[in-house]
């Protein structure tokens, strides 16, 4: 007996003590387990809640709700992404300033030939790298191109959420016309105004916002839709050329097509005025020479052949390319495979239980995992290297084409100074127009070659060839001119 209870000095009966310890331990274990279980239960409950309601409509939005903050109350995830377009992003060749407060660099710092190419045009005085969507309107208001030069109201077609103003203006001008006609009327009327007049009108209408939700989404169903008259008219003309009559993208396009069409409302080549209403030159197709043919065949109201401005150094009637991302993407491997703009620039992401497309529209290079690795299962640095190889080669060729253009301009200038007449220079200046159009088309396109590397290299090859042809013609013209006056006095002496 005593052998089992060796402790004899304690006051408590020795057999009671372990029992209390055991009891406390059990209570402790049960308490902790219960707490952990309850915690788990709450966690499971939380996760289940996440999987419910995709969104709640707190406020009603209509086709006239241009303020993105209103939409943001219903769709906060998309709105958050939209707001992030104010964040500066960088890639090797693209991107804005290191801070939001700073303006991006002038493009001519990297490509000094741009200033020569744009001689006599507003782009020679100010042409900066891009910033995000959030800045599209303020950047337009602060550039010297609108501050120091007169610009038409049609610039706002893409830099503001302007469709309600078009509709209102159209309704005032033609109260009985159908909505589509009113939209077109308003679009034409606002486009004709001076830029600052149109801007003031926009501010007064209460729709002064950069691109907004309503520009791409149907306010009832949230489905993608296109609203800008330039695109609606342009795609209609393009499809008519392909043999499809009366094409309406909002009725006839597939969902996947719409994921590019909404971007194609602005990221395209167009004529912005003021000599005629803004139009997308797609009547003959989307390739560089097809667009060129459209411009060459286009006559302004005064009967003059289409041109953007007269080159200040040579007097050539030249073309200005805008930013033909949609057209170039169409020629590239991703475009041909049916990969939409949004697939790479607004890839899907998970938030809670929801699959949302990232509304922080930006370079896929800043979001490789979601943008590229969805299809290309290679390490991230390998993908970056592949893209940069394409872009480095493209930049080298672009710089070479810029050099050829400058040499051509020098040769034409020299021929002019040597006394070449307008008639003599005519074929040379025509060649300049072609060479410059091709170079500008490629340089203005925002992908540093990536959207369609081979097509862009082909265009640059043509540009280099044409620049050199024009240079050669100018040099030999100058040489014949140099011989001619020498022969003249000799003839009179005889």
């Amino acid at each position: 007996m005593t052998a089992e209870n060796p402790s004899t000095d304690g006051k408590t009966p020795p057999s009671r003590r372990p029992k209390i310890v055991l009891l406390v331990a059990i209570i402790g274990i049960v308490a902790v387990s219960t707490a952990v279980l309850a915690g788990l239960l709450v966690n499971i409950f939380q996760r289940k809640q996440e999987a419910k309601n995709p969104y709640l409509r707190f406020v009603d939005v209509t086709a006239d709700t241009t303020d993105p903050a209103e939409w943001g109350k219903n769709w906060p995830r998309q709105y958050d992404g939209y707001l992030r377009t104010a964040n500066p992003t960088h890639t090797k060749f693209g991107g804005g300033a290191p801070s939001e407060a700073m303006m991006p660099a002038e493009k001519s710092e990297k490509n000094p030939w741009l200033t020569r190419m744009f001689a006599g045009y507003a782009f020679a005085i100010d042409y900066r790298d891009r910033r995000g969507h959030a800045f599209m309107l303020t950047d337009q208001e602060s550039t010297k191109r609108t501050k120091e030069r007169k610009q038409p109201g049609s610039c706002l077609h893409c830099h503001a959420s302007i469709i309600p103003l078009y509709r209102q203006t159209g309704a005032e001008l033609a109260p009985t016309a159908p909505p589509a006609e009113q939209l077109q009327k308003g679009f034409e009327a606002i486009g004709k105004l001076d830029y600052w007049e149109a801007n003031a009108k926009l501010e007064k209408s209460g729709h002064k916002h950069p691109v907004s939700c309503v520009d791409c989404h149907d306010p009832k169903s949230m489905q993608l839709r296109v609203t800008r008259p330039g695109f609606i008219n342009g795609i209609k003309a393009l499809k008519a050329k392909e043999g499809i009559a009366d094409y309406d993208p909002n009725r006839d396009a597939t969902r996947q097509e719409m994921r590019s069409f909404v971007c194609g409302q602005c990221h395209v080549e167009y004529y912005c005025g003021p000599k005629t209403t803004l139009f997308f030159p797609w009547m003959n197709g989307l390739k560089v020479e097809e667009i060129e043919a459209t411009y060459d065949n286009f006559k302004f109201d005064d009967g003059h052949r289409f041109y953007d401005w007269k080159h200040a150094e040579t007097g050539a009637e030249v073309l200005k390319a805008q930013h033909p991302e949609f057209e170039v993407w169409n020629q590239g491997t991703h475009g041909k495979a049916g990969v939409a703009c949004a697939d790479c620039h607004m890839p899907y992401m998970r938030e809670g239980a929801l699959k949302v497309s990232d509304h922080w529209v930006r370079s896929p290079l800043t979001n490789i995992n979601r943008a590229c690795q969805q299809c290309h299962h290679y390490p991230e640095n390998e993908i970056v290297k592949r893209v940069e190889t394409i872009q480095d080669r493209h930049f080298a060729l672009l710089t070479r084409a810029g050099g050829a253009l400058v040499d051509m301009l020098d040769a034409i200038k020299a021929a002019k100074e040597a006394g070449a007449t307008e008639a003599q220079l005519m074929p040379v200046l025509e060649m300049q127009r072609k060479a410059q159009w091709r170079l500008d088309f490629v340089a203005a396109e925002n992908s540093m070659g990536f959207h369609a590397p081979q097509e862009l290299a082909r265009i640059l090859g043509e540009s280099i060839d044409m620049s050199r042809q024009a240079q050669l013609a100018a040099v030999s013209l100058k040489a014949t001119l140099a011989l001619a006056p020498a022969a003249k006095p000799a003839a009179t002496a005889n």
Partner: protein
Amino acid sequence: MAVGLGLLLGLGLFTFIYAEGFSYFTTDPKACANCHIMNSEYDSWVKSSHHIVATCADCHLPHSLVPKLVAKTVNGYHHSKGFTFQDFHEPIMIKPHNSQILQEACLGCHGGLVHDMVAGSTTDANAVSCVHCHSSVGHGR
């Protein structure tokens, strides 16, 4: 004390049922999408070429009993831990061991056809894997 233990047991049972614990003893693909994290995998599997012939378990678990139970236990633990604490890598990436299970599952059906291509090389670190090229036969993400 009996009351306390009973309460714990009851709470535990409720949590288990609420979390659809019994579904994990089945091979129904819906069970794999119990947690919403697998929604897009499940949705795309429904539309994939393999959905008539293979469920999640057919490709992602070994085909013999003991390795299957081991893989289910180990993955079940990792999944619950990851989903509860939300501390996993995104997008989700398959672990090397599970990748091996997947490859063996491909060969389970297609082994006869591709024997000449993959013979002896499935366990190699650089071994060719079927899904490297056929990435969308099972599901997207």
